[in-house]
């Protein structure tokens, strides 16, 4: 399907599965693997924990640097590092170079590493030239632009391009799709009531869109919005965009109960 294989060269992609996907929703990881393999990539999953963002955003540069080095070592032998997350992708691609800017050797290395790192959907479209996927999802969906993907990695049109090729899918743009959902990592817990107010504004926009399913590219935001919708008794389903693009939507949506077994 991909242009890359016509040249006969193998595109080796290391999947940074992200800690949240690893722990909470591995299905997103398998959807990412399928999308990458369908596009002709050879996917590996180096041993990993987290990208270090919690330490970085808490002001703990020493641990952030140690974890960044661990990630750069683990993914040294792949052509690309791809994450199903704009937030973790942004950490590698924008913030690793900041962490090492005072160290000449590591600075160059982190910049080279940043240059080979991509968020999943923008990698498919911008790097591999994928314009369509083989999937069906006969529902109206709203797409939330997660902040880091949007503002650090310019992820905006790419998911919409691929969603347009999903059979039966109807995209209902919602108001303020580019406004933060209030997750913000530890912010959601530390300033719980402010976060709650922000996510309420977001879910009001989701409800007003009339969508059946809410999609986004970051599991942190999705867990926040799905958790709020579930708390409010909403019928709206929530999934990662990769699940829909890969046609892997058999698992129950995020925060939803498993269907009763007949």
């Amino acid at each position, binding site marked *: 399907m991909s242009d890359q294989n016509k040249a006969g060269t193998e595109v080796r992609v290391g999947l940074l599965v992200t800690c949240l996907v690893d722990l909470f929703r591995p299905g997103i990881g398998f959807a990412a693997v399928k999308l990458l393999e369908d596009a002709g990539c050879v996917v590996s999953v180096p041993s990993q924990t987290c990208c270090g963002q919690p330490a970085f955003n808490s002001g703990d540069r020493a641990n952030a640097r140690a974890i960044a080095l661990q990630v750069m070592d683990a993914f040294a032998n792949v052509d690309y590092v791809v994450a199903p997350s704009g937030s973790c992708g942004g950490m590698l691609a924008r913030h690793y170079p900041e962490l090492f800017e005072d160290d000449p050797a590591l600075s160059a290395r982190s910049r080279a590493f940043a240059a080979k790192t991509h968020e999943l959907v923008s990698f498919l479209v911008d790097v591999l030239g994928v314009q369509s996927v083989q999937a069906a999802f006969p529902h109206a969906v709203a797409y939330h632009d997660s902040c880091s993907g949007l503002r650090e990695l310019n992820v905006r049109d790419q998911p919409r391009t691929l969603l347009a090729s999903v059979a039966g899918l109807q995209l209902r743009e919602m108001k303020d799709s580019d406004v933060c959902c209030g997750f913000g990592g530890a912010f959601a817990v530390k300033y719980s009531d*402010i976060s709650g107010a922000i996510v309420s504004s977001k879910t009001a926009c989701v409800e007003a869109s009339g969508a059946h399913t809410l999609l986004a590219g970051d599991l942190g935001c999705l867990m926040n919005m799905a958790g709020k919708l579930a708390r409010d008794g909403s019928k709206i389903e929530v999934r990662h965009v990769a699940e829909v693009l890969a046609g892997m939507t058999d698992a129950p949506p995020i925060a939803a109960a498993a269907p009763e077994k007949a």
Partner: protein
Amino acid sequence: MTAYPTSPQFRENARAALADGQLQKALGNVRTNFIAKRAAVADRLPEFEALRDQARDLRDHVLAHLDVYLEAYERKVIESGGHVHWARTAEEASRIIVDLAKSRGARSVAKGKSMVSEEIGLNAALERAGIKAVETDLGEYIIQLRGEAPSHIIAPAVHLNQEDVEAEFRRVHTWLPKDRDLSEPESLLAEARAELRAKFLAADIGVTGANFLVAETGTSIIVTNEGNGDLSQILPRVHVVVASIEKIVPTLEDAAGLLRVLARSATGQEMSVYTTLSTGPRRADDLDGPQEYHVVLVDNGRSNMLGSEFEEMLRCIRCGACMNHCPVYHAVGGHAYGWVYPGPMGAVLTPSLIGVDKAGHLPNASTFCGRCESVCPVRIPLPKLMRHWREREFERHLSPAVSRAGLGLWAFFARRPALYRFVTGLTIRALAWAARGKGRFKSLPLASGWTAQRDLPAPQGQTFQAQWKAQQAKQRKRS
């Protein structure tokens, strides 16, 4: 007025703000009006992004040569017949102005809108000296009646609704007939103007801030939409400009470039209604103007920011776009931040000026959504600077012990992949088992911060890495 700062009580302030129905109604206007207007006016100007780059570069240039430009500016002010006073601290700045007023026998001071005058606590200092300060900006006038501080750097009364203002006018302007219509902003402005006209004429001293100080000419520039700044500085005998040292620009042309991004970013106007330049006192052939012209240049911590990781904050031209686009500001409003400067710019500037030990909540209470940086006319990397404050806090052990311990424990595992996989594998399976069939937790020990507001989605089952490893092993066996 509330005693500043209340930043240490940010959490309590925020909680009260979230429960305040009138405030929440007023904040709705910030969410819609400012954002739509800025977007529209930026779209209409093809070179807007290039102008932002130029504005950033110009401000950086000024900060790199601040001493040179400040001295050049001082010379020009003196040449034009004015006086320059240097104030190291807020107290010094206030004292200089109070002494000036006392020595001129002043009884009342007319003030144009000025955030730095809030920063130095000027009104309170004047009042202690028995001198009445009259705010002449409509928004400032309203909050002065209410005994409040500004909640926004360009729209000080944005936390109020029209009916709040009407009620305040009817309370204070007791002479108003009951059938007088005050339902429109214009009618409120007319009422305030009628009342203020007499105060302008009675004022002995006019105090204004400055949007820019021009080094080549010794000129101060203010922008307003009501014209009150003009009257504040032309009618009284003495005009005092109070401005922080980083407001300098080299030339009038540079100021013009910054004006092009300022109003667009602030209110979505191409230009503010009034752009007022003042250079020195009244000259022999001038028809009006003050007899004396003074400039008070306030440092108050800014020179410490030069050369530090917070220097970029001094590029700020006080447009307010960052707070207009901030989801946290939208949720809690400006007063919750507890000091003069709210929103993202306040979250960086306030710890610099009053100490991170007092203002530590501010740079932490951000989702790092980055929308502030994306609209800043001088491209200040606000999230990055907030993160630098978190780093300072972490280094000085100012962050709460519980979160430090949690972070330390997490980092211990995150740096040991094999141990991490083992421990998370067990934990996740246990969690998935506990939530079996339900898909989410309504509450969970140690997760109350999360579940206070929303359910916690349950894990699907085994971790991705465990399943991947098993799958790879199976494939190897087959081949």
